[in-house]
């Protein structure tokens, strides 16, 4: 169990809680690139009920038919990736932790849009978004409903 605190760049949105794991991952998907303005988001999984929010509530942008991305409405800092249903977990952005050094990189996700040259690593597990059942199943349900 790792005690964490974090928040956005302007300080309006804050959170505190615990992580069950120190295993963070880079998500290289195009939506994470846009959300972070860079080549990858650094994310760590947390139980929703293990994170307490304070200050201004985070704004939630509906980034897909089944998920939201939390951010600060006053400064834009990306804070979370959250499925609407079917999960009692959410992802926190590692950069928003007060001490990002509490976690470590364990894997790479969304590697179909990995931009080479920035993160010099070929030793950790790599997964494409279409190799991840929780995401594949949610998109299949969306397409079936159409």
């Amino acid at each position, binding site marked *: 169990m790792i005690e964490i605190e974090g928040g*956005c*760049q*302007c300080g309006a949105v804050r959170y505190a809680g615990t992580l069950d794991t120190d295993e*963070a991952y*880079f998500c290289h998907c*195009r*939506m994470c*690139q*846009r*959300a*972070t*303005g*860079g*080549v*990858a*988001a*650094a994310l760590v999984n947390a139980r929703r009920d293990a994170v307490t929010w304070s200050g201004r509530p985070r*704004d939630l*942008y509906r*980034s897909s038919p089944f998920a939201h*991305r939390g*951010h*600060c*409405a*006053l*400064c*834009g*800092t*990306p*804070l979370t990736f959250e499925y609407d249903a079917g999960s009692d977990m959410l992802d926190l*952005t*590692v*950069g*928003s932790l007060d001490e*990002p*050094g509490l976690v*470590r*990189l364990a894997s790479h996700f969304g590697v179909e*849009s990995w*931009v080479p*040259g*920035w*993160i*010099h*690593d070929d030793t950790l597990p790599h997964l494409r978004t279409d190799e991840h059942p929780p995401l594949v199943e949610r998109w299949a349900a969306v397409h079936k409903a159409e």
Partner: protein
Amino acid sequence: MIEGGCQCGAVRYRVSAADLKVYACHCRECQRQSGSAFALSAPVRSADFALTGDVGVWSRGTASGARTACSFCAACGTRIHHQSSAAPEWLTLKPGTLDDTSGLFARAHIWTAHRQPWVILDPAVEAFETQPADLPAWRRRFVEAG
């Protein structure tokens, strides 16, 4: 034409330049702002940049005494660009927001003293432990280099 925009599409922009020169910053402010382990910056001339849509602006003081205005999509929070009061003729674009990120070539890293230890850099890419003494002048040379 170089084009991009935020996650939700409300903010769109064009850059009139042949290409973009991109560096990564590993300082804590950039980690927080991006939510990731480092942020990317692509300096562009303000006169070469055209944006449509509603942006929010949050500004912060910097160690040099200048203020940095940080613009983000008012709807989805995506950070689009920064502009320093010390060099308003330039913007630093957040290039993860480009429609095509596949060509973002790694040219430099700054503030590697604050690099997360699990981010392994390519030793062939120029790296500064802190930042060049005159950052605006360095950015201009960086863009004008071949």
